[in-house]
């Protein structure tokens, strides 16, 4: 089959590789109809996530048709149309039983590697380095899906691929970011980053009843989407004024947002000159993996007693973390890779009943063979690119 593989920093290529086979009795093979490039794929592309290997198939947002099932798969049959959550979860361990699917204790066969870096292993993830298991990803014609009765979600009506594809990751991830904020109605929520996950965090905060939702970014086309499509009430364009903390305080009468959502992660783009330069050097020399301006500003801006919700991806270590502000302001941090399985059904219902049409983020549609071009376009924010969907 054809697959998009990582072949070193800033390089991907579409190659012929063997077709996947059922390796375990709870596996299914899915013929992929649509797959997407995630902002977090850029962290791999840029070489900031350790434990990548040449030849790794990328991609963790995909859907398609079940073409084969292992003997112990009971809920799926050949021909079913499914969306596949990016975390691989067994459904049996203590974490899965408590709906902490991205913390599945059994799905990562490289647990020993993960334990060295994080203290404990976390779940397996498709196409996301060897520390999350070394599973082939979904930017390919076919994918092997373990624990097929637990993850894949059947789509049984005529919604288009683009309306349901993002249930695999970015819609639930953005929603979890808003869910962490304990929105009861009337809150001010600031969302750092108006990329695809940020867009869904904004839309979700609005759906959950926040009164003021502030989008923060430096690209006007992303801020325009945040306001016009996702429903942000205010925007902060830090290309015009870099003092994000002060702007957020002004927008909230000096209080600061009740909760802040970091939808940026480890490669934050802005920051105060000297600090940004120091972070860049440390990251380039691999003595720091995570560049943290967005999170630092989020913590400084958040109102005392508020919530810091982190859904942007971090990989290792960060310098100059504002622990004093966090502690003295009594902030609560909530974070994690999304427990997609927990949210996929209720969010599917929201799509079905018309509360939201997730396809609003799609700006680019390309064949799988053009994946290398798509990565470059997306990375360099060319052509007002927000979200790329690839068709195998």
């Amino acid at each position, binding site marked *: 089959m054809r*697959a998009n*593989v990582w072949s070193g920093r800033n390089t991907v290529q579409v190659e012929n*590789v*063997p*077709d*996947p*086979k059922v*390796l*375990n*009795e*709870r596996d299914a093979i899915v013929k992929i109809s649509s797959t997407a490039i995630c902002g977090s794929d850029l962290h791999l592309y840029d070489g900031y996530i350790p*434990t990548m*290997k*040449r*030849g*790794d*198939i990328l991609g963790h947002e995909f859907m398609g048709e079940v073409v084969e099932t292992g003997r*112990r798969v009971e809920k799926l049959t050949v021909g079913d149309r499914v969306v596949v959550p990016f975390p691989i979860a*067994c*459904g*049996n*361990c*203590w974490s899965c*039983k408590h709906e902490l699917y991205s913390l599945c*204790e*059994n*799905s*990562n*066969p*490289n*647990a*020993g*590697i993960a334990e060295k870096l994080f203290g404990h292993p976390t779940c*397996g993830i498709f*196409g996301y380095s*060897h520390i999350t*298991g*070394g*599973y*082939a*990803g979904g930017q390919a014609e076919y994918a*092997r899906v*373990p*624990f097929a009765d637990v993850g894949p979600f059947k789509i049984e009506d005529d919604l288009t691929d683009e309306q349901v594809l993002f249930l695999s990751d970015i819609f639930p991830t953005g929603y979890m970011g808003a869910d962490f904020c304990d929105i009861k109605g009337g809150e001010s929520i600031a969302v750092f980053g108006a990329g695809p996950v940020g867009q869904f965090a904004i839309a979700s905060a609005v759906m959950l009843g926040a009164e003021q939702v502030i989008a923060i970014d430096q690209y006007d086309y992303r801020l325009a989407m945040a306001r016009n499509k996702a429903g942000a009430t205010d925007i902060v364009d830090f290309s015009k004024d870099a003092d994000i903390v002060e702007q957020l305080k002004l927008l909230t009468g000096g209080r600061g947002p009740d909760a802040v959502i970091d939808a940026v992660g480890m490669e934050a783009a802005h920051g105060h000159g000297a600090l940004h330069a120091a972070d860049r050097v440390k990251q380039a020399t691999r003595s720091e993996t995570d560049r943290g301006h967005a999170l630092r500003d989020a913590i400084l801006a958040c109102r005392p007693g508020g919530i810091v919700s982190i859904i942007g991806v971090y990989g290792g270590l960060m310098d100059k973390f504002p622990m004093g502000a966090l502690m003295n302001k009594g902030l609560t941090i909530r974070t994690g890779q999304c427990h997609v399985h927990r949210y996929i059904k209720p969010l599917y219902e929201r799509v079905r009943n018309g509360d939201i049409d997730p396809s609003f983020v799609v700006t680019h549609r390309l064949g799988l063979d053009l994946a290398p071009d798509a990565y470059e376009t997306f990375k360099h924010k060319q052509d007002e690119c927000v979200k790329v969907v690839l068709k195998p």
Partner: protein
Amino acid sequence: MSARTAITVNRDRDEVQRLWSEPGTRPDHIADLDATVTFKEAPGDRGTEIHVDLGPGGRLDAVTKRFTGADPLAKVKDDLRRFKQLVETGEISRSDSTPEGERAERKLGQRPAQPLDDSELQKAGVA
């Protein structure tokens, strides 16, 4: 000082102890060692803790063999994880990079995350 490790399996103690010695789930590597294994009910209905103690010799062994990829404690941990996987999920978790399932020796020699061809599948014992 001794080399010790522990894991918690989400099943009750009788079942865990029974499966510990049953063919199919028995952790062969640990069984072959002169290790002390104890089972203990985990607090709060979380299943059963399995504690493995390799004794005073185990620690020295672990240090000398760490660089050869055969650290006995790492292999014990592999065995415990595989036992937990088999008991909780009914199978050993396999990925494209680690088709045999968790193996300390694989840590440095990972396959790329792309499907195996037929000869590799046979070698990994999953064909």
